[in-house]
Protein backbone atom coordinates (compact mmCIF):
# COMPACT_ATOMS: atom_id res chain seq x y z
CA UNK A 1 0.00 0.00 0.00
CA UNK A 2 3.02 2.23 -0.12
CA UNK A 3 1.92 3.52 -3.48
CA UNK A 4 -1.11 5.20 -2.13
CA UNK A 5 -0.52 8.86 -1.66
CA UNK A 6 -2.23 9.82 1.58
CA UNK A 7 -1.81 13.49 0.84
CA UNK A 8 -4.20 13.19 -2.03
CA UNK A 9 -7.08 11.61 -0.30
CA UNK A 10 -6.55 12.87 3.20
CA UNK A 11 -6.79 16.33 1.83
CA UNK A 12 -7.18 18.55 4.87
CA UNK A 13 -8.99 16.01 7.02
CA UNK A 14 -6.49 14.04 9.02
CA UNK A 15 -8.93 11.55 10.41
CA UNK A 16 -10.36 10.52 7.10
CA UNK A 17 -8.30 8.07 5.10
CA UNK A 18 -11.06 8.14 2.54
CA UNK A 19 -10.92 8.72 -1.20
CA UNK A 20 -14.07 9.06 -3.25
CA UNK A 21 -14.63 9.23 -6.97
CA UNK A 22 -17.85 9.90 -8.82
CA UNK A 23 -17.99 8.37 -12.29
CA UNK A 24 -20.61 9.47 -14.75
CA UNK A 25 -21.66 9.34 -18.37
CA UNK A 26 -24.27 7.97 -20.75
CA UNK A 27 -25.82 4.58 -20.22
CA UNK A 28 -23.92 2.04 -22.29
CA UNK A 29 -20.54 3.67 -21.72
CA UNK A 30 -19.69 1.12 -19.06
CA UNK A 31 -19.68 3.60 -16.20
CA UNK A 32 -20.87 1.13 -13.57
CA UNK A 33 -18.38 -1.51 -14.62
CA UNK A 34 -15.56 1.02 -14.53
CA UNK A 35 -16.43 1.82 -10.94
CA UNK A 36 -16.75 -1.80 -9.99
CA UNK A 37 -13.35 -2.58 -11.34
CA UNK A 38 -11.81 0.20 -9.28
CA UNK A 39 -13.62 -1.02 -6.16
CA UNK A 40 -12.52 -4.58 -6.83
CA UNK A 41 -8.91 -3.56 -7.22
CA UNK A 42 -9.19 -1.55 -4.01
CA UNK A 43 -10.58 -4.57 -2.19
CA UNK A 44 -7.76 -6.72 -3.51
CA UNK A 45 -5.32 -4.07 -2.31
CA UNK A 46 -6.69 -4.64 1.19
CA UNK A 47 -8.72 -1.45 1.38
CA UNK A 48 -12.25 -1.01 2.52
CA UNK A 49 -14.33 -0.15 -0.50
CA UNK A 50 -17.87 0.76 -1.41
CA UNK A 51 -19.43 1.10 -4.82
CA UNK A 52 -22.78 2.77 -5.17
CA UNK A 53 -24.56 3.02 -8.52
CA UNK A 54 -27.36 5.15 -9.81
CA UNK A 55 -30.46 2.98 -10.02
CA UNK A 56 -34.12 2.94 -10.94
CA UNK A 57 -35.79 5.79 -12.73
CA UNK A 58 -32.59 7.80 -12.50
CA UNK A 59 -31.35 5.68 -15.37
CA UNK A 60 -34.07 6.58 -17.85
CA UNK A 61 -32.87 9.17 -20.29
CA UNK A 62 -29.65 7.30 -20.68
CA UNK A 63 -27.44 8.56 -17.89
CA UNK A 64 -25.47 6.46 -15.44
CA UNK A 65 -23.22 7.20 -12.54
CA UNK A 66 -21.60 5.56 -9.58
CA UNK A 67 -19.54 6.50 -6.58
CA UNK A 68 -16.55 4.50 -5.41
CA UNK A 69 -14.96 5.04 -2.03
CA UNK A 70 -11.65 3.58 -0.97
CA UNK A 71 -10.50 3.82 2.60
CA UNK A 72 -8.29 2.29 5.23
CA UNK A 73 -10.99 2.92 7.82
CA UNK A 74 -14.50 1.57 7.72
CA UNK A 75 -16.62 3.59 5.35
CA UNK A 76 -19.69 5.48 6.42
CA UNK A 77 -21.98 6.62 3.64
CA UNK A 78 -21.20 5.18 0.22
CA UNK A 79 -22.34 8.45 -1.35
CA UNK A 80 -20.76 11.84 -0.95
CA UNK A 81 -21.65 15.49 -1.17
CA UNK A 82 -18.22 16.57 -2.44
CA UNK A 83 -15.86 14.12 -4.02
CA UNK A 84 -12.07 13.87 -4.26
CA UNK A 85 -12.42 13.03 -7.91
CA UNK A 86 -15.01 13.13 -10.66
CA UNK A 87 -14.87 11.30 -13.96
CA UNK A 88 -17.26 12.65 -16.58
CA UNK A 89 -17.64 10.76 -19.81
CA UNK A 90 -20.31 12.94 -21.37
CA UNK A 91 -21.36 16.54 -21.55
CA UNK A 92 -24.52 16.15 -19.44
CA UNK A 93 -22.50 14.16 -16.91
CA UNK A 94 -19.95 16.92 -16.63
CA UNK A 95 -22.73 19.44 -16.23
CA UNK A 96 -24.39 17.47 -13.50
CA UNK A 97 -21.47 16.07 -11.57
CA UNK A 98 -18.50 18.31 -12.40
CA UNK A 99 -19.32 20.67 -9.58
CA UNK A 100 -19.05 17.87 -7.01
CA UNK A 101 -15.28 17.87 -7.21
CA UNK A 102 -13.52 19.12 -4.12
CA UNK A 103 -11.19 22.08 -4.06
CA UNK A 104 -7.85 20.63 -5.09
CA UNK A 105 -9.48 17.43 -6.31
CA UNK A 106 -9.28 15.72 -9.66
CA UNK A 107 -11.58 16.04 -12.65
CA UNK A 108 -11.15 13.62 -15.54
CA UNK A 109 -13.24 14.23 -18.64
CA UNK A 110 -13.74 12.40 -21.87
CA UNK A 111 -12.77 15.03 -24.38
CA UNK A 112 -14.20 12.92 -27.20
CA UNK A 113 -17.67 13.83 -26.01
CA UNK A 114 -17.18 16.92 -23.92
CA UNK A 115 -16.66 20.33 -25.37
CA UNK A 116 -13.14 21.36 -24.74
CA UNK A 117 -13.48 24.68 -22.98
CA UNK A 118 -12.32 24.03 -19.45
CA UNK A 119 -15.30 24.19 -17.12
CA UNK A 120 -15.37 26.30 -14.00
CA UNK A 121 -14.48 23.33 -11.91
CA UNK A 122 -11.26 22.96 -13.82
CA UNK A 123 -10.13 26.09 -12.09
CA UNK A 124 -10.29 24.73 -8.57
CA UNK A 125 -9.47 21.10 -9.39
CA UNK A 126 -6.80 19.37 -11.35
CA UNK A 127 -8.19 18.78 -14.82
CA UNK A 128 -7.31 15.88 -17.07
CA UNK A 129 -8.85 15.68 -20.50
CA UNK A 130 -8.69 12.29 -22.24
CA UNK A 131 -9.83 11.66 -25.85
CA UNK A 132 -11.10 8.26 -24.78
CA UNK A 133 -12.96 7.32 -27.91
CA UNK A 134 -10.04 8.12 -30.15
CA UNK A 135 -7.62 6.22 -27.94
CA UNK A 136 -10.02 3.30 -27.80
CA UNK A 137 -10.37 3.31 -31.56
CA UNK A 138 -6.63 3.26 -31.79
CA UNK A 139 -6.38 0.01 -29.77
CA UNK A 140 -9.15 -1.41 -31.91
CA UNK A 141 -12.24 -1.43 -29.67
CA UNK A 142 -14.37 1.67 -29.19
CA UNK A 143 -16.12 0.02 -26.27
CA UNK A 144 -12.90 0.30 -24.26
CA UNK A 145 -13.27 4.05 -23.75
CA UNK A 146 -14.27 3.48 -20.14
CA UNK A 147 -11.15 1.43 -19.43
CA UNK A 148 -9.01 4.11 -21.04
CA UNK A 149 -10.60 6.60 -18.66
CA UNK A 150 -10.01 4.32 -15.71
CA UNK A 151 -6.37 3.87 -16.61
CA UNK A 152 -6.01 7.61 -16.93
CA UNK A 153 -7.74 8.15 -13.61
CA UNK A 154 -5.61 5.59 -11.81
CA UNK A 155 -2.38 7.29 -12.69
CA UNK A 156 -3.84 10.74 -12.34
CA UNK A 157 -5.06 10.04 -8.83
CA UNK A 158 -2.49 7.43 -7.77
CA UNK A 159 -5.17 6.19 -5.42
CA UNK A 160 -4.40 2.61 -6.35
CA UNK A 161 -1.03 1.14 -7.35
CA UNK A 162 -1.49 0.83 -11.09
CA UNK A 163 0.35 -2.37 -11.90
CA UNK A 164 -0.92 -4.20 -8.90
CA UNK A 165 -4.45 -3.18 -9.86
CA UNK A 166 -4.04 -4.19 -13.46
CA UNK A 167 -3.13 -7.67 -12.35
CA UNK A 168 -6.60 -8.08 -10.83
CA UNK A 169 -8.39 -7.69 -14.16
CA UNK A 170 -8.73 -11.40 -15.03
CA UNK A 171 -10.10 -12.42 -11.64
CA UNK A 172 -12.48 -9.47 -11.75
CA UNK A 173 -14.07 -10.68 -14.95
CA UNK A 174 -16.68 -13.40 -14.75
CA UNK A 175 -15.48 -16.58 -16.45
CA UNK A 176 -17.36 -16.21 -19.74
CA UNK A 177 -15.86 -12.77 -20.27
CA UNK A 178 -12.37 -13.50 -19.09
CA UNK A 179 -10.95 -13.48 -22.59
CA UNK A 180 -11.46 -9.73 -22.57
CA UNK A 181 -8.69 -9.31 -20.00
CA UNK A 182 -5.84 -8.58 -22.42
CA UNK A 183 -7.84 -5.94 -24.25
CA UNK A 184 -8.82 -4.30 -20.97
CA UNK A 185 -5.26 -4.27 -19.77
CA UNK A 186 -4.25 -2.71 -23.05
CA UNK A 187 -6.84 -0.01 -22.57
CA UNK A 188 -5.81 0.70 -19.01
CA UNK A 189 -2.23 1.09 -20.13
CA UNK A 190 -3.26 3.29 -23.03
CA UNK A 191 -5.05 5.65 -20.64
CA UNK A 192 -2.09 5.58 -18.29
CA UNK A 193 0.39 6.41 -21.04
CA UNK A 194 -1.74 9.24 -22.32
CA UNK A 195 -1.73 10.87 -18.88
CA UNK A 196 1.96 10.24 -18.28
CA UNK A 197 2.70 11.85 -21.63
CA UNK A 198 0.50 14.79 -20.70
CA UNK A 199 2.26 15.21 -17.39
CA UNK A 200 5.60 15.17 -19.08
CA UNK A 201 4.38 17.82 -21.46
CA UNK A 202 3.19 20.09 -18.63
Amino acid sequence: MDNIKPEIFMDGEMWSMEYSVVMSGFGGQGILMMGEMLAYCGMKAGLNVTWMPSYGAEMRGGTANCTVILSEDRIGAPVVGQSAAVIAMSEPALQKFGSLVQEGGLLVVNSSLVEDDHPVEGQKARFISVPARELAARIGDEKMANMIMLGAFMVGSEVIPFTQATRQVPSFLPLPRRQLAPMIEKALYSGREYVLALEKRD
Partner: protein
Amino acid sequence: MSVVTEKKVFEAPSCLTDKVFHFCPGCHHGLIHRLVGEAIDQFALAGSAIGVIGVGCGVFLYDYLTVDCCEAPHGRAPAVATGIKRVNPDSFVFTYQGDGDLAGIGTGEIIHAAARGENITVIFVNNSVYGMTGGQMAPTTLPGQKTTTTPEGREPARDGYPLRMAELLASLEGTAYSARVSCHDNLHLRRAAKALNKAFRAQVEKRGFSVVEFLSACPTNWHLTPEQSRQKIISEMVPAYPPGVFRDFDD
Protein backbone atom coordinates in the same frame (compact mmCIF):
# COMPACT_ATOMS: atom_id res chain seq x y z
CA MET B 1 -38.14 31.57 -42.93
CA SER B 2 -40.41 29.46 -45.00
CA VAL B 3 -42.07 30.80 -48.06
CA VAL B 4 -45.44 32.38 -47.39
CA THR B 5 -47.45 29.76 -49.20
CA GLU B 6 -46.01 27.01 -46.99
CA LYS B 7 -48.34 25.49 -44.43
CA LYS B 8 -47.58 23.32 -41.46
CA VAL B 9 -48.91 19.87 -42.29
CA PHE B 10 -47.60 18.18 -39.21
CA GLU B 11 -46.89 19.60 -35.82
CA ALA B 12 -47.23 18.67 -32.20
CA PRO B 13 -50.76 18.73 -30.77
CA SER B 14 -51.50 21.94 -28.95
CA CYS B 15 -51.94 20.28 -25.55
CA LEU B 16 -48.41 18.86 -25.70
CA THR B 17 -45.78 20.77 -23.72
CA ASP B 18 -42.33 21.57 -25.08
CA LYS B 19 -40.59 19.39 -22.56
CA VAL B 20 -38.40 16.73 -24.18
CA PHE B 21 -39.67 13.23 -23.38
CA HIS B 22 -37.60 11.28 -20.89
CA PHE B 23 -38.20 8.09 -22.82
CA CYS B 24 -35.40 6.03 -24.35
CA PRO B 25 -34.70 6.32 -28.10
CA GLY B 26 -37.27 4.40 -30.09
CA CYS B 27 -39.66 3.99 -27.18
CA HIS B 28 -43.25 4.28 -28.35
CA HIS B 29 -44.52 5.85 -25.14
CA GLY B 30 -43.80 9.28 -26.64
CA LEU B 31 -45.69 8.44 -29.78
CA ILE B 32 -48.68 7.27 -27.78
CA HIS B 33 -48.53 10.48 -25.75
CA ARG B 34 -48.73 12.41 -28.99
CA LEU B 35 -51.70 10.37 -30.22
CA VAL B 36 -53.50 10.96 -26.94
CA GLY B 37 -52.75 14.66 -27.28
CA GLU B 38 -54.15 14.67 -30.79
CA ALA B 39 -57.33 12.96 -29.65
CA ILE B 40 -57.71 15.49 -26.84
CA ASP B 41 -57.33 18.26 -29.39
CA GLN B 42 -59.79 16.66 -31.82
CA PHE B 43 -62.50 16.51 -29.20
CA ALA B 44 -61.44 19.84 -27.66
CA LEU B 45 -61.04 18.21 -24.29
CA ALA B 46 -57.96 20.03 -22.96
CA GLY B 47 -60.18 21.95 -20.57
CA SER B 48 -62.16 19.01 -19.31
CA ALA B 49 -59.85 16.01 -19.50
CA ILE B 50 -58.47 14.41 -16.38
CA GLY B 51 -55.68 11.89 -16.80
CA VAL B 52 -55.07 9.13 -14.31
CA ILE B 53 -51.55 7.90 -14.63
CA GLY B 54 -50.39 4.45 -13.66
CA VAL B 55 -46.91 3.77 -12.38
CA GLY B 56 -44.55 2.83 -15.17
CA CYS B 57 -42.39 4.64 -17.67
CA GLY B 58 -45.44 6.74 -18.56
CA VAL B 59 -45.76 8.11 -15.03
CA PHE B 60 -44.62 11.60 -16.04
CA LEU B 61 -47.40 12.09 -18.58
CA TYR B 62 -48.41 15.17 -16.63
CA ASP B 63 -45.15 16.79 -17.65
CA TYR B 64 -46.12 16.46 -21.29
CA LEU B 65 -49.85 17.02 -21.57
CA THR B 66 -51.47 20.19 -20.27
CA VAL B 67 -54.43 18.51 -18.63
CA ASP B 68 -55.37 17.88 -15.00
CA CYS B 69 -53.76 14.69 -13.80
CA CYS B 70 -53.75 12.32 -10.87
CA GLU B 71 -51.13 9.74 -10.05
CA ALA B 72 -52.59 6.36 -9.23
CA PRO B 73 -50.95 3.66 -7.17
CA HIS B 74 -49.52 0.93 -9.39
CA GLY B 75 -52.39 -0.90 -11.09
CA ARG B 76 -55.19 1.09 -9.49
CA ALA B 77 -55.74 3.72 -12.18
CA PRO B 78 -59.17 2.32 -13.17
CA ALA B 79 -60.36 2.59 -9.55
CA VAL B 80 -58.99 6.10 -9.19
CA ALA B 81 -60.58 7.04 -12.50
CA THR B 82 -63.88 5.61 -11.26
CA GLY B 83 -63.73 7.86 -8.23
CA ILE B 84 -63.01 10.91 -10.36
CA LYS B 85 -65.63 10.15 -12.99
CA ARG B 86 -68.34 9.52 -10.40
CA VAL B 87 -67.66 12.94 -8.88
CA ASN B 88 -67.18 14.76 -12.20
CA PRO B 89 -69.32 12.86 -14.68
CA ASP B 90 -68.83 15.58 -17.29
CA SER B 91 -65.06 15.48 -17.24
CA PHE B 92 -63.31 13.32 -19.79
CA VAL B 93 -61.44 10.78 -17.69
CA PHE B 94 -58.74 8.58 -19.15
CA THR B 95 -56.14 6.27 -17.66
CA TYR B 96 -52.67 5.66 -19.03
CA GLN B 97 -51.29 2.28 -18.00
CA GLY B 98 -48.51 -0.12 -18.85
CA ASP B 99 -48.94 -3.85 -19.20
CA GLY B 100 -47.48 -4.60 -15.81
CA ASP B 101 -49.80 -2.03 -14.36
CA LEU B 102 -52.98 -3.07 -16.15
CA ALA B 103 -52.56 -6.79 -16.78
CA GLY B 104 -50.47 -7.64 -13.74
CA ILE B 105 -51.10 -5.96 -10.44
CA GLY B 106 -54.18 -4.14 -11.71
CA THR B 107 -56.08 -7.10 -13.19
CA GLY B 108 -58.93 -6.86 -10.71
CA GLU B 109 -59.42 -3.13 -11.13
CA ILE B 110 -59.44 -3.13 -14.93
CA ILE B 111 -61.83 -6.07 -15.19
CA HIS B 112 -64.28 -4.60 -12.74
CA ALA B 113 -64.10 -1.12 -14.24
CA ALA B 114 -65.00 -2.73 -17.56
CA ALA B 115 -67.69 -4.90 -15.99
CA ARG B 116 -69.21 -1.83 -14.41
CA GLY B 117 -69.23 -0.17 -17.80
CA GLU B 118 -67.40 2.69 -16.15
CA ASN B 119 -67.51 5.54 -18.62
CA ILE B 120 -63.77 6.05 -18.88
CA THR B 121 -61.15 5.55 -21.58
CA VAL B 122 -58.12 3.37 -21.01
CA ILE B 123 -54.84 3.83 -22.86
CA PHE B 124 -52.98 0.58 -22.46
CA VAL B 125 -49.31 0.34 -23.46
CA ASN B 126 -48.26 -3.25 -24.05
CA ASN B 127 -44.49 -3.47 -24.41
CA SER B 128 -44.30 -7.03 -23.07
CA VAL B 129 -42.04 -6.09 -20.15
CA TYR B 130 -41.88 -4.08 -16.97
CA GLY B 131 -40.08 -1.12 -18.49
CA MET B 132 -39.62 1.23 -15.61
CA THR B 133 -38.25 -1.35 -13.21
CA GLY B 134 -35.69 -2.64 -15.67
CA GLY B 135 -37.18 -5.32 -17.83
CA GLN B 136 -38.76 -8.03 -15.71
CA MET B 137 -41.34 -10.44 -17.08
CA ALA B 138 -44.78 -8.95 -17.65
CA PRO B 139 -48.06 -10.84 -17.96
CA THR B 140 -47.73 -10.04 -21.66
CA THR B 141 -44.19 -11.35 -22.08
CA LEU B 142 -44.12 -13.78 -25.00
CA PRO B 143 -43.29 -17.45 -24.52
CA GLY B 144 -39.55 -17.86 -24.84
CA GLN B 145 -38.87 -14.14 -24.35
CA LYS B 146 -35.88 -13.44 -22.14
CA THR B 147 -36.34 -10.93 -19.38
CA THR B 148 -34.42 -10.28 -16.19
CA THR B 149 -36.70 -12.64 -14.28
CA THR B 150 -36.96 -15.23 -17.05
CA PRO B 151 -33.27 -15.41 -17.89
CA GLU B 152 -33.77 -18.57 -19.95
CA GLY B 153 -36.90 -17.24 -21.60
CA ARG B 154 -40.49 -17.38 -20.41
CA GLU B 155 -41.51 -21.01 -19.99
CA PRO B 156 -45.32 -21.10 -19.99
CA ALA B 157 -45.55 -24.31 -17.99
CA ARG B 158 -43.69 -22.60 -15.19
CA ASP B 159 -44.18 -18.88 -15.76
CA GLY B 160 -47.64 -18.91 -17.25
CA TYR B 161 -49.16 -17.90 -20.56
CA PRO B 162 -49.50 -14.35 -21.88
CA LEU B 163 -52.77 -12.52 -21.34
CA ARG B 164 -54.61 -10.98 -24.28
CA MET B 165 -56.29 -8.10 -22.55
CA ALA B 166 -58.06 -6.44 -25.49
CA GLU B 167 -59.95 -9.66 -26.18
CA LEU B 168 -60.57 -10.39 -22.53
CA LEU B 169 -61.97 -6.94 -21.83
CA ALA B 170 -64.02 -7.09 -25.02
CA SER B 171 -65.84 -10.10 -23.58
CA LEU B 172 -67.32 -8.05 -20.75
CA GLU B 173 -70.75 -6.54 -21.08
CA GLY B 174 -69.79 -3.14 -19.75
CA THR B 175 -67.21 -2.62 -22.47
CA ALA B 176 -68.33 -0.31 -25.27
CA TYR B 177 -65.13 -0.39 -27.24
CA SER B 178 -62.00 -2.50 -27.17
CA ALA B 179 -59.29 -2.51 -29.78
CA ARG B 180 -55.65 -3.41 -30.21
CA VAL B 181 -53.39 -1.32 -32.40
CA SER B 182 -49.68 -1.19 -33.14
CA CYS B 183 -47.13 1.58 -33.40
CA HIS B 184 -44.71 0.02 -35.81
CA ASP B 185 -45.56 1.72 -39.12
CA ASN B 186 -47.61 4.46 -40.70
CA LEU B 187 -50.48 2.22 -41.66
CA HIS B 188 -50.89 0.89 -38.16
CA LEU B 189 -50.45 4.32 -36.67
CA ARG B 190 -53.32 5.62 -38.71
CA ARG B 191 -55.47 2.76 -37.47
CA ALA B 192 -54.28 3.52 -33.96
CA ALA B 193 -55.39 7.13 -34.25
CA LYS B 194 -58.75 5.98 -35.55
CA ALA B 195 -59.20 3.52 -32.70
CA LEU B 196 -58.27 6.15 -30.17
CA ASN B 197 -60.76 8.52 -31.71
CA LYS B 198 -63.47 5.92 -31.40
CA ALA B 199 -62.53 5.13 -27.82
CA PHE B 200 -62.75 8.80 -26.98
CA ARG B 201 -66.09 9.01 -28.70
CA ALA B 202 -67.35 6.12 -26.61
CA GLN B 203 -66.83 8.16 -23.49
CA VAL B 204 -68.03 11.44 -24.92
CA GLU B 205 -71.24 9.70 -26.01
CA LYS B 206 -71.49 7.92 -22.64
CA ARG B 207 -71.41 4.46 -24.17
CA GLY B 208 -69.43 2.87 -21.36
CA PHE B 209 -65.93 1.57 -20.92
CA SER B 210 -63.42 1.94 -23.74
CA VAL B 211 -59.88 0.66 -24.10
CA VAL B 212 -57.16 0.77 -26.72
CA GLU B 213 -54.17 -1.53 -26.36
CA PHE B 214 -51.01 -0.30 -28.07
CA LEU B 215 -48.23 -2.69 -29.09
CA SER B 216 -45.20 -0.68 -28.17
CA ALA B 217 -41.43 -1.08 -28.27
CA CYS B 218 -39.12 -1.08 -25.27
CA PRO B 219 -35.73 -1.15 -27.03
CA THR B 220 -33.90 -0.73 -23.72
CA ASN B 221 -35.27 -3.80 -22.04
CA TRP B 222 -35.57 -5.81 -25.21
CA HIS B 223 -31.86 -5.11 -25.65
CA LEU B 224 -32.47 -4.25 -29.28
CA THR B 225 -31.95 -1.17 -31.42
CA PRO B 226 -35.08 0.82 -32.23
CA GLU B 227 -35.24 -0.65 -35.72
CA GLN B 228 -34.77 -4.20 -34.41
CA SER B 229 -37.50 -3.45 -31.91
CA ARG B 230 -39.82 -2.39 -34.68
CA GLN B 231 -39.08 -5.64 -36.47
CA LYS B 232 -39.78 -7.58 -33.29
CA ILE B 233 -43.20 -5.96 -33.07
CA ILE B 234 -43.91 -7.05 -36.63
CA SER B 235 -42.59 -10.57 -36.33
CA GLU B 236 -43.45 -11.49 -32.77
CA MET B 237 -45.85 -9.10 -31.10
CA VAL B 238 -48.37 -8.72 -33.93
CA PRO B 239 -48.81 -12.47 -34.43
CA ALA B 240 -49.25 -13.06 -30.69
CA TYR B 241 -51.38 -9.98 -30.15
CA PRO B 242 -53.32 -9.45 -33.37
CA PRO B 243 -54.43 -5.86 -33.91
CA GLY B 244 -58.13 -5.45 -34.37
CA VAL B 245 -61.38 -4.14 -32.96
CA PHE B 246 -62.87 -6.67 -30.53
CA ARG B 247 -65.89 -4.77 -29.39
CA ASP B 248 -67.52 -1.72 -30.89
CA PHE B 249 -70.61 0.05 -29.65
CA ASP B 250 -71.57 0.81 -33.22
CA ASP B 251 -71.88 -2.87 -34.08
